[in-house]
């Protein structure tokens, strides 16, 4: 039946209330197309979500980026009755706002707007179910438009989260939404319209993009689809109306299958490393990411899915709330971190905690984070905080369920996580469980769910940031820089400084790194002045010491003190022997330690001093103080 007849029937049809006592019902309208409707009492808005089973899990070698391109085609591509880019503008004209999302198992377009815009939302959704073919060049432009639209593009997860998810559930090569975007953009690079005023011919699409465009054109009409409609009972379309709008859709045979290896789910412990190094393009030195893989916990403990979700929701509140178990020990006062993010991933299930460390090293923050979480799995949570968190989690669920957008999101997430039974029953079970779970339940769950075996520490190495921004002005760096200033300012008499060799041999620095370090310090004139002043003072002291004992005699002096005097039988005799040496060298004993410290800075003398230490120092003492820190 032509679409306009269906629409005229739909528009002219008086809105019908749901006959079912349950607010949510599900219909399979055509092979591969399911429509879920849910009545939200008192809602003034509608939310219509179209999901295609074409997610990141379907990507692999040769198809990285396909999902992002598919999302762009779904949002802005031409359809049977619309030109490219018309759908969003048409929705806007009816007051509909278009939002997009990329998931591991699906891409989604959600239209949200006033209740009376529902006919337009359904019409646009039906249009998007029948996409028209799209060339590679046009597809690349649509993808760029999607990325450039801040209101509509899916927000990328923070890089630590991306990498943690990738490490937990898929290949590290790029199993994340933003990576998919980046690859699609890389594939389309150079395909945009030529610069205005420049007569350079547009480049031909490269082979990668052409192949990706062909995959998208093949997959979009085939991928199985789900439409979730949330609206007030008065506006919710009846089954006949849905049949008229969506019933003419051609069968959808499912599209490309997921490539994620299902054996990962069964045997994840064997293959998952406990610690990985990941790279991303922002400065991540201070980010601490720890994740726990929760696949199979509920099965192991024999608890229903709704009850486990309730426990995970309460745990999320306990971790993320400023009055919870993490904020006070980690952030308050002069804590080790200045921010905490908690992500509870529904499918596959995981908990990811990301903290932004303060100070010179994230190691202390990670340690403190793990220490703060350990009691949850050993003694359980504080009861008063747990009971409060239970209420908060329940209120949050109720609040989201009471809005059309939140309702559509929850239904989609539960479908994605294969929540058992009808949605309303699952939601009711979850709400009841949220008011019923006890601290001992969380203890039992956390003893498995937060166990070290399930824990993954993601170590991030920043790449793509300017060298100078990677410089951390911590105490060690500043101490080294001061020593370097002294080396340059007052070298040993008769010695010339080969800067490159000095940087390499003594400090392990490249010249570029040294320049970057100097630039960073020079941004703070006060600090630079302090360092210069300190270096000047130290040079004055070195000159005085060099006048007292020439460099050639320092090694002999150290041997006499450490080996000859140090071999005496008891402390009194050693003391007398050392005094004799100092008298022989005509040296005040208080000068000895600064003198040796200065000599150790000399690359020519240091090996000889260390050889003496190794030969003569007592085995229980360290010849040099151990470096502080990890």
């Amino acid at each position, binding site marked *: 039946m032509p679409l306009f007849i269906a629409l005229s029937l739909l528009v002219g049809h008086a809105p019908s209330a749901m006959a079912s006592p349950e607010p949510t019902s599900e219909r399979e309208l055509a092979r591969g197309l399911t429509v879920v409707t849910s009545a939200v009492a008192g809602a003034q*808005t509608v939310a219509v979500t179209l999901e295609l089973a074409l997610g990141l899990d379907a990507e692999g070698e040769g198809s990285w980026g396909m999902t992002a391109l598919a999302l762009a085609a779904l949002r802005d591509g031409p359809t049977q009755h619309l030109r490219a880019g018309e759908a969003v503008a048409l929705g806007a004209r009816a*007051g509909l706002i278009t939002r997009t999302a990329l998931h591991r198992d699906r891409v989604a377009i959600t239209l949200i707007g006033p209740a009376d815009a529902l006919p337009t939302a359904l019409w646009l959704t039906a249009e998007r179910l029948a996409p028209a073919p799209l060339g590679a060049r046009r597809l690349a432009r649509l993808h760029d438009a999607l990325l450039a639209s801040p209101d509509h593009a899916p927000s990328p997860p923070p890089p630590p989260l991306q990498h943690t998810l990738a490490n937990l559930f898929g290949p590290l090569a790029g199993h994340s939404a933003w990576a998919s975007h980046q690859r699609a953009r890389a594939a389309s690079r150079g395909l945009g319209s030529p610069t205005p005023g420049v007569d350079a011919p547009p480049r031909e699409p490269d082979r990668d993009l052409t192949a990706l465009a062909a995959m998208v054109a093949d997959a979009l009409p085939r991928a199985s689809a789900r439409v979730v409609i949330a609206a007030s009972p008065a506006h919710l379309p009846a089954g006949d109306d849905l049949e008229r709008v969506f019933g003419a859709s051609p069968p959808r045979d499912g599209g490309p299958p997921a490539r994620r290896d299902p054996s990962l789910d069964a045997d994840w412990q064997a293959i998952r490393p406990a610690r990985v190094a990941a790279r991303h393009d922002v400065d991540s030195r201070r980010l601490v990411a720890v994740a726990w893989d929760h696949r199979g916990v509920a099965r192991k403990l024999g608890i229903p899915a709704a009850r486990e979700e309730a426990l995970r929701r309460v745990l999320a509140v306990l971790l993320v709330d400023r009055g919870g178990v993490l904020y006070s020990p980690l952030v308050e006062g002069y804590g080790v971190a200045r921010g905490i993010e908690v992500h509870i991933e529904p499918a596959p299930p995981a908990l990811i905690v990301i903290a932004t460390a303060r100070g010179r090293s994230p190691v202390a923050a990670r340690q403190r984070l793990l220490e703060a979480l350990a009691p949850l799995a050993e003694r359980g949570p504080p009861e008063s905080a747990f009971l409060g968190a239970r209420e908060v989690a329940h209120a949050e669920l109720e609040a989201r369920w009471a809005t059309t957008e939140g309702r559509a999101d929850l239904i989609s997430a539960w479908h994605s996580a294969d929540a058992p039974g009808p949605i309303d029953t699952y939601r009711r079970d979850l709400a009841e469980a949220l008011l019923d779970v006890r601290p001992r339940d969380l203890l039992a769950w956390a003893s498995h769910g937060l166990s070290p075996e399930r824990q993954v520490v993601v170590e991030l190495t920043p790449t793509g940031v300017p060298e100078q921004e990677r410089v951390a002005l911590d105490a060690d760096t500043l101490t080294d820089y001061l020593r370097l200033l002294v080396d340059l300012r007052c070298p040993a008499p008769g010695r010339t400084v080969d800067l490159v060799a000095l940087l390499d041999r003594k400090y392990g620095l490249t010249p570029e790194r040294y320049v970057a370090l100097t630039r960073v310090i020079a941004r703070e004139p006060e600090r630079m002045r302090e360092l210069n002043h300190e270096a000047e003072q130290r040079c004055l002291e070195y000159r005085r010491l060099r006048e007292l004992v020439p460099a050639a005699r320092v090694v002999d002096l150290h041997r006499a003190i450490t080996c000859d005097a140090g071999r005496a039988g008891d402390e009194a005799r050693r003391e007398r022997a050392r005094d004799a040496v100092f008298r022989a060298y005509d040296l005040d004993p208080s000068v000895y330690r600064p003198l040796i410290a200065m000599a150790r800075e000399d690359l020519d003398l240091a090996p000889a001093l260390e050889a003496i230490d190794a030969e003569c120092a007592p085995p229980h003492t360290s010849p040099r103080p151990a470096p502080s820190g990890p």
Partner: protein
Amino acid sequence: MTRATTRTTWAALALLLAGCPSPSASRRSVPPPAPPELSAAPALPPSTRLPDGVTVIHLPSHTPRLFAVTLLVPVGPLDEPAGLEGITELTLAGAGLATARDPGHAQGPYHRALELGGRLEPYRDGSIAGWRISGPIASRGALLRLLRDLVAAPTFPSTRVQALAEMLREEREQTPSHFRARGLAWAVGLALDRDRPLGLDAPDHTLARLNREDLARHHRRVFRPERAVAVSEGVPADVIAQALRDWRPPPPYPREAAPCVRPHSPPNARPRPGQAELGVIQGWLAAPDREAGLFVALAVPGGGDPLRPALDALLLERRALDGGAGLEVAVVDRGDQAAFVLFTDDLAPPLAAAVDRWLAQASRPQGPLRGDLGARLRRAGALIADHDPSLRAVAVAKRALGLWRPTRREPRDDERAEVLRILNDPDRRVRVVLGDDRYARALERWGPVTPLTRRVDLCTE
């Protein structure tokens, strides 16, 4: 062929065409549903004035066993003392550290709220600030008393305030993008005829001199019951009155007789830093190259102005039509005033060409504001914001305070013309460029450029 046969043939042909449209015909053959009619804006919900001066506005609660109260006062960067920019944010954060009625050091307001099954959330923007407390009805009394403690008895513990300032300073150092926030603050400040930045975050000089006395003074100055609006979801006015009965207007702070606010100059009263002959004010803020960008700002009608809906409609329309691509465009509210800001990081010569293009497009007769698209989007935005209880409460409070106008109708022709006239008045523009001195020199083609210092003169009290 008989007439009946002819009719049958035409009918069959019409049916065939309707059922099997040709590719070219089918592209436009099915119109989408007509857009719905715009409805009138809802009336302001009922309100009550408590004896202590607090205005209580009643909203229905989404869920019967939960309640929420959002207590807000009108305060923003325009109310902050010179030299202490961003102190409103710090005051909110500092009050959340501890109150005089906390049972113990480790049990601050957030901890108390969680134990009661409630959630405490601070809120602030350029016009309004306060807290929202929500939770189960069973804990209503205790949670409302906690809200009272925040507005009436915060202690601002000195050591923790210093630790907070230290943490924010460290965060600032480690966040490169703060240069843009600083540039935006300067652009807004200059556009609103202040010679200082009007940002939300505390700059370095505020963090460096911050102490608990500053926070306590600002708190007592702005958090006064007669200025407050409490948006209630599920709590009767008498219950709120009972919880807030101890909140008495504090006596004027001894040093507040002359508030430390530098008087701003009236428009065109005297030459301003970097003022060019055309009246355009230009400033330069040194920043790393990767943060380079240009802000163009001008004063526009504030949130409560009758022209504001037309301005919002223009922005929403442009964003919908160009997909948000291109320039970053925003209206930044500061109290009852507002600045229209365009930002571009495309600084290829000629500088600001993209901005000029944007403004030229906006002024075309056949350009934006030609229909009701903006009004529809504004209505949709308001409805969607209603989903978020916090935003809904803030919108209602702003409306009660005259800081927001909920018109849903299509802008009239005279309103459109006036908005376009404001946007295209070159004498009202402010340009602030971020980056190294090359960009400052590039900006000089329009007139003198003044370096914007990061430190303003401290107020002489």
